[in-house]
């Protein structure tokens, strides 16, 4: 049954936190009040990507795109757009230049994007399997089961050139092939949904918006390598994604798409969910498998690789959520089609979580090879508040910075590694002139100190040492030898640490040291933090604008400001804790921060 109009309401975590639920309910009520329930379907979808401007509501077929919608706007949307066919201008997106765009095609944020992984996010109701099926869902599974041999599937994957999206970019077909070739009565398929990079949420949105795409892909891999059981290892911090996966699995079983004899074939496959428990190292594959086994999530040396000896010592294919989400489309549209997108060695698209000091923060999916400039300026709309661009951190705590100089580099696996960073899972954090490169390196190092599992000393001791040195530098106590030490320890960790966490933990330090050496020197020689972030290096002073209103003296938590009423005040620098309260409160611009 087709409806005349569809009203799509974003049900991603971002928008749900801004009352998308009430918007959904109100829209349904208004539609019913207007007697339109047979003509209009209101659907709650996954994330549209434009979370910064959420909650998002879209009306089809008009393609009207509304941002920052409130529950009280429901009535107007129904009356104007659905009944009279008019756009509610007030709710349309207005860009920098004041241009109103009522349809997504006109919005810069969407123009350079290409949606393969997120093909269904923001389009279908993720809690209804029929909507996934209506968009070619499970066609790929049917195709492999009845028209393809496992070898043909591997061949198709090879042609596609798909590389793992969880970090290292290992060719997916090779992993599958290793597992396929091992003789074993039991094999496993695992989905890595641990998404540990703080500041990235691609996997979360994919699972919330299109859970079936991952289930379908895992079943395809199961058929290909000869596995009958899959596990999804997901962060316990993602309750909505877990709920949608559970619903999706139940529906798939009901439809005979999971379970015994799928679609009447002699292939059986089922999936279970296992919850992570807040340990970053469990994103590393051997640690993840230990965790599924119910143990402490400590990595083990490779080889043996999981593909040969993984979960409960059985051959195990483990892929990332985004890798999985690509698989069904590759099967239905063909590996050649997929390989034609992106660059020669990095085919397809990549989803990035574009965050930080950017105007349009959100989830963006672009063909591999798109430049950073296009992502930051064309899609992201540039830096917030007219500040200057400083750098972008990719790869989270395992990655590094890309600077303004490299802004025209096409982004793919190999170029990022050449630049001293890495793709990682797809976090892209934009920094502006107010961010201190040493402060950010210290932030990541602190994270690594906390997350190091402690099994090997290069990482356990190394992360701590790096952190201590960075702290020293941020307090103006650093020396030139410290810089040498950072490099030496970092290089040693890269060689000697047992797992990827320790091997990559020095990356943010080494890369920032390489590209922002002058800032390190400034902290050491001039005791200066140009971004004003390193508290120990800034001073607050009162200038001649001071009217002696006494407000700052009353606000200062340590009472270190003195002066007579209507006289210029002064700050006792020995007691000041640099909290900035005085500056925040002064109405006469009399307090300076240096």
């Amino acid at each position, binding site marked *: 049954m087709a409806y005349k109009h569809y009203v799509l309401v974003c049900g991603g*975590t*971002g928008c*749900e*936190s*801004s009352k998308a639920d009430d918007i959904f309910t109100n829209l349904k009520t208004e539609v019913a009040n207007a007697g339109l329930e047979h003509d209009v379907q209101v659907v709650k979808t996954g994330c549209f990507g434009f*979370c*910064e401007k*959420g909650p998002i509501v879209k009306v089809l077929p008009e393609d009207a795109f509304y941002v920052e919608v409130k529950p009280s706007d429901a009535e107007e949307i129904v009356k104007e757009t659905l009944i009279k066919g008019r756009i509610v201008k007030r709710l349309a997106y207005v860009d920098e230049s004041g241009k109103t765009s009522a349809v997504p095609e006109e919005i810069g944020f969407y123009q350079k994007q290409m949606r393969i992984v997120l093909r269904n996010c923001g389009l279908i109701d993720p809690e209804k399997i029929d909507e996934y099926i209506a968009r070619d869902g499970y066609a790929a599974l049917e195709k492999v089961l009845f028209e393809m041999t496992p070898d043909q599937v591997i061949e198709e994957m090879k042609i596609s050139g798909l590389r793992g999206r969880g970090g290292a970019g290992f060719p997916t077909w090779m992993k599958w092939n290793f597992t396929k070739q091992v003789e074993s009565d039991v094999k496993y398929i695992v989905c890595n949904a641990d*998404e*540990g*990079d*703080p*500041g*990235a*949420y691609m996997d*979360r*949105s994919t699972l919330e918006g299109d859970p079936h795409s991952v289930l379908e892909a895992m079943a395809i891999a199961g058929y290909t390598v000869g596995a009958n059981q899959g596990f999804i290892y997901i962060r*316990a*911090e*993602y*309750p909505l994604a877990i709920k949608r996966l559970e619903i999706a699995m139940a529906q798939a079983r009901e439809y005979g798409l999971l379970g015994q004899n799928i679609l009447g074939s002699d292939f059986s496959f089922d999936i279970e969910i*296992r*919850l*992570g*428990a*807040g*340990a*970053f190292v469990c994103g590393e594959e051997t640690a993840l498998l230990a*965790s*599924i*086994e*119910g*143990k*402490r*999530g400590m990595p083990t040396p490779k080889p043996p690789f999981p593909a040969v000896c993984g979960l*409960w010592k059985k051959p195990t294919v483990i892929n990332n959520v985004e890798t999985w989400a690509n698989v069904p489309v590759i099967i239905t549209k063909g590996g050649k089609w997929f390989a034609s997108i992106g660059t020669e060695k990095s085919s397809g698209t990549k989803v990035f*979580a574009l*965050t*930080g*000091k950017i105007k349009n*923060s*959100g*989830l963006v999916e672009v063909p591999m090879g798109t430049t950073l400039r296009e992502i930051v300026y064309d899609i992201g709309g540039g830096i917030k508040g007219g500040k200057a661009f400083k750098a972008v*951190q990719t790869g*989270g705590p395992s990655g590094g910075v890309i600077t303004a100089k490299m802004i025209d580099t096409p982004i793919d696996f190999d170029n990022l590694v050449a630049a001293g960073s890495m793709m990682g899972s797809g*976090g892209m*954090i934009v*920094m502006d002139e107010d*961010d201190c490169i040493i402060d*950010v390196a210290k*932030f*990541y190092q602190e*994270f690594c100190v906390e997350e190091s*599992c402690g099994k090997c000393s290069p990482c356990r001791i190394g992360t701590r040492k790096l952190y201590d040195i960075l702290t020293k530098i941020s307090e103006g106590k650093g020396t030139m030898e410290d810089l040498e030490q950072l490099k030496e320890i970092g290089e040693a960790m890269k060689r000697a640490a047992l797992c990827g966490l320790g091997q990559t933990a020095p990356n943010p330090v080494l890369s920032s040291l390489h590209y922002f050496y002058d800032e390190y020197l400034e902290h050491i020689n001039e005791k200066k933090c140009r971004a004003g972030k390193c508290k120990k290096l800034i001073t607050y002073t009162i200038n001649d604008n001071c009217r002696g209103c006494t407000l700052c003296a009353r606000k200062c938590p340590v009472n270190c400001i003195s002066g007579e009423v209507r006289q210029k005040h002064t700050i006792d620098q020995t007691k000041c804790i640099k909290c900035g309260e005085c500056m925040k409160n002064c109405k006469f611009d009399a307090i300076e921060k240096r």
Partner: protein
Amino acid sequence: MPTEQKTDTVFSKELENFIAEWKEKPGNLIMILHKVQSEFGYISRGAAMKVAEMLDIPLAKIYGVITFYHFFKLNKPGKNVIQVCMGTACYLKGGQAILDETAKHLNIPVKGVTEDGMFSLESVRCVGCCGLAPVVVIGDEVFGKVLPEQMPEILANFSE
């Protein structure tokens, strides 16, 4: 901390059934601990002892697992758990100031619980809404684009 070897912690029927269902499954411990924590809000010594008893595994193994994973709590949290996101996106946009302000307002340190047991304060790493940074989660409600000065007002709504 109680020293007796028997425990008087009582599990709900639902929890007992869950454990019975998972008992024979390999790798069940973490799933069972999640379920215990979702019932009590934390894993008390008594609860850990009871799980050890029911699964017939050493208590030390359970503590090995609980202490490895940050998600599991050994102490009773407040009625409303405040999680201030300190993931990268939120950190750059002032997560620290929110954390400081909240700690100051409630007069408790991070990881602390207020005297009346109403609130506990935690810092967490990315809750997956980075587009809304800085983010605070209270119970299961997410607050985005939070300013430090809004915290007292937000908390007031949870005080009853």
